[in-house]
């Protein structure tokens, strides 16, 4: 790290914000372009039911991506989101299926949020207090949560859930699936917290230059901890919605979601080095990937090709970020 305190990162605005704007424009243009391509090769693509289908397909990734954006903005990473979501989902399903009607369903939902919170708190304490690298802490939680999910279910899915359990995942309100409404709400809240609240500025400051933020009076430990805790809460919610969509608590659910989520964040222009990025960019990143997967599926493209396509997109996004950064370094 250079000694120069990059003030732009403490104050929203300036060159960094400009870069974000450009990144957002670029990805929106990319979304328009890919939509045109798919509309040509797959006639079913441009229809309201299919666009709702796309929104539904990114709902859970999207909810997770909001929390992940904040985590990555602090310069961290959370690899445990998929496993922790699975654990939250199976616990919710076990409680909901214990036969107390709506009461146990609500209790199960709260338990899912509680599990997410606990995992987030653990990750946050390890990272903020004990300075364990986030990659390692959350990698450990990835395997621990997955193991727990298998142990408490005996490796089997927990089904036979009351129909009220399906509300968050399977119902629609005014024609819009509930998971999509939840995702949009979480994006709006995430945008508000990160862009309009002092806490959000601190998140950017911690990731941009931790030392400078500390010297400026930011409680860097507290901010980091809170980011992981809030992220954990979203993980619990995502696990609950996932279980509800599947109509079961499935111990192998959420496999490799961390990769999908990180991909959405990175494609959305958020830098893995921390300090730069936005929730809006992440939203577009998730939309871009959602349309890519859906369009390739509709067009019947080979599943292997889809993986390659996503990999290329991620590489391009990271390359763009890197070019921007080195250009910035030359100017200062």
């Amino acid at each position, binding site marked *: 790290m250079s000694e120069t305190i990059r003030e732009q990162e403490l104050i929203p605005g300036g060159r960094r914000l400009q870069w974000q704007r450009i990144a957002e424009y670029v990805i929106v243009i990319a979304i328009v372009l890919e939509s045109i391509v798919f509309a040509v090769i797959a006639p079913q693509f441009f229809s309201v039911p*299919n666009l709702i289908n796309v929104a*539904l397909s990114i709902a859970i990734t999207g909810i997770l991506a909001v929390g992940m954006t904040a985590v990555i903005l602090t310069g961290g990473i959370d690899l445990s989101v998929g496993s922790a979501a699975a654990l939250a989902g199976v616990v919710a399903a076990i409680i909901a299926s214990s036969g107390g009607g709506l009461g146990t369903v609500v209790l199960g939902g709260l338990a899912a949020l509680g599990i997410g919170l606990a995992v987030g708190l653990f990750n946050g304490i390890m990272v903020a207090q004990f300075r364990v690298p986030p990659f390692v802490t959350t990698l450990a939680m990835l395997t621990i949560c997955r193991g727990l999910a298998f142990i408490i279910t005996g*490796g*089997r*899915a927990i*089904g036979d859930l009351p129909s009220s359990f399906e509300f968050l995942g399977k119902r629609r309100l005014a024609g819009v699936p509930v998971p999509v409404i939840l995702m949009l709400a979480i994006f709006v809240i995430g945008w508000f917290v990160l862009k309009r609240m002092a806490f959000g500025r601190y998140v950017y400051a911690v990731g941009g230059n931790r030392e400078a933020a500390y010297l400026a009076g930011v409680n860097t430990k507290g901010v980091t901890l809170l980011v992981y805790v809030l992220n954990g809460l979203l993980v619990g919610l995502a696990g609950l919605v*996932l279980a509800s969509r599947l109509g079961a608590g499935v111990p*192998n659910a959420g*496999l490799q979601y961390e990769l999908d989520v990180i991909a959405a964040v990175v494609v959305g222009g958020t830098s893995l080095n921390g300090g730069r990025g936005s929730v809006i960019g992440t939203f577009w990143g998730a939309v871009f990937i959602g349309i890519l997967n859906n369009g390739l599926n509709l067009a019947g493209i080979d599943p292997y090709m889809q993986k390659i396509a996503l990999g290329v997109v991620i590489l391009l996004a990271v390359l763009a970020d890197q070019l921007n950064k080195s250009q910035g370094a030359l100017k200062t």
Partner: protein
Amino acid sequence: MTGGCQSGGNSGSGGKRIGVTLLTREHEFYKQLEAGLKEAADKQGYQLIVTSGDFDLAKQQSQIENFVVQKVDAIILCPADSKGIAPAIKMANEANIPVFTADISAQGGQVVSHVASDNLAGGRLAADFIARALNGQGTVGIIGQQEVQTGLDRELGFKEEMKKYPGIKIAIVLNGAGVRDRALKAAEDMLQGHSDLKAIFGINDDSALGALAAAETRGRNDIIIVGYDATPEAVKAIQRGSALKADVAQQPHDLGAKTIEAISTYFSGGQPTKSIAVPVKIVDANTLKESGGVP
């Protein structure tokens, strides 16, 4: 050190001793496989030393090392890692102990026979069921798992058999990675993109149950879904009259018996087939009613 739980002692002098290392003893599939092994071995007068690798390659290696030290007459192995187990198999080869693999094959070392479910035949059974249910007419989709050989075989068997039915078109094949949430997404795109879709084959029950969740969310109870493995959850879904209409069931008990049969052929000086396919069967609401819910 890690001997695992052993059943049977070393007291018998007459019968042949066979060392077994299962993948796990937790799953129903392996419990039945073990029961099949035991029954057949009892008939032949063989003594089984059964251990479980518990999905742990290192544990399984040391179990095989123990078998070599104990100078068993044969080893039955369900590898925790097809490639990683090769050195242990070579060790048994050097000690001139014949090795048989059951359910999961090994890559490397000399294996006398590999005994496993006939996944190609399972795919064919699923195709026949769907073709009959659709009266030989309609569009179908497959939710596959192309990363895994068993998944590929099931898909391949299904596609081959469907060639017999010119009125049926396999419109789309997507990858559900063998897990339910990915299968759900794949099924949603499938139902979205092909409104005329009449049936979906899921290459395992997670794939089929993911497709079922997608169909139910869309109120598409008219669709015919066929799964594979006949897990308790899938059996329940079939019994409650959902869109999941049938499942291909493996016969782990038979798998165990066939493995002992191969060993018996070998002991009596014969050369058992290198690859032994154990038949599978299809279960639906009717067969489940007859059998009292047992797949």
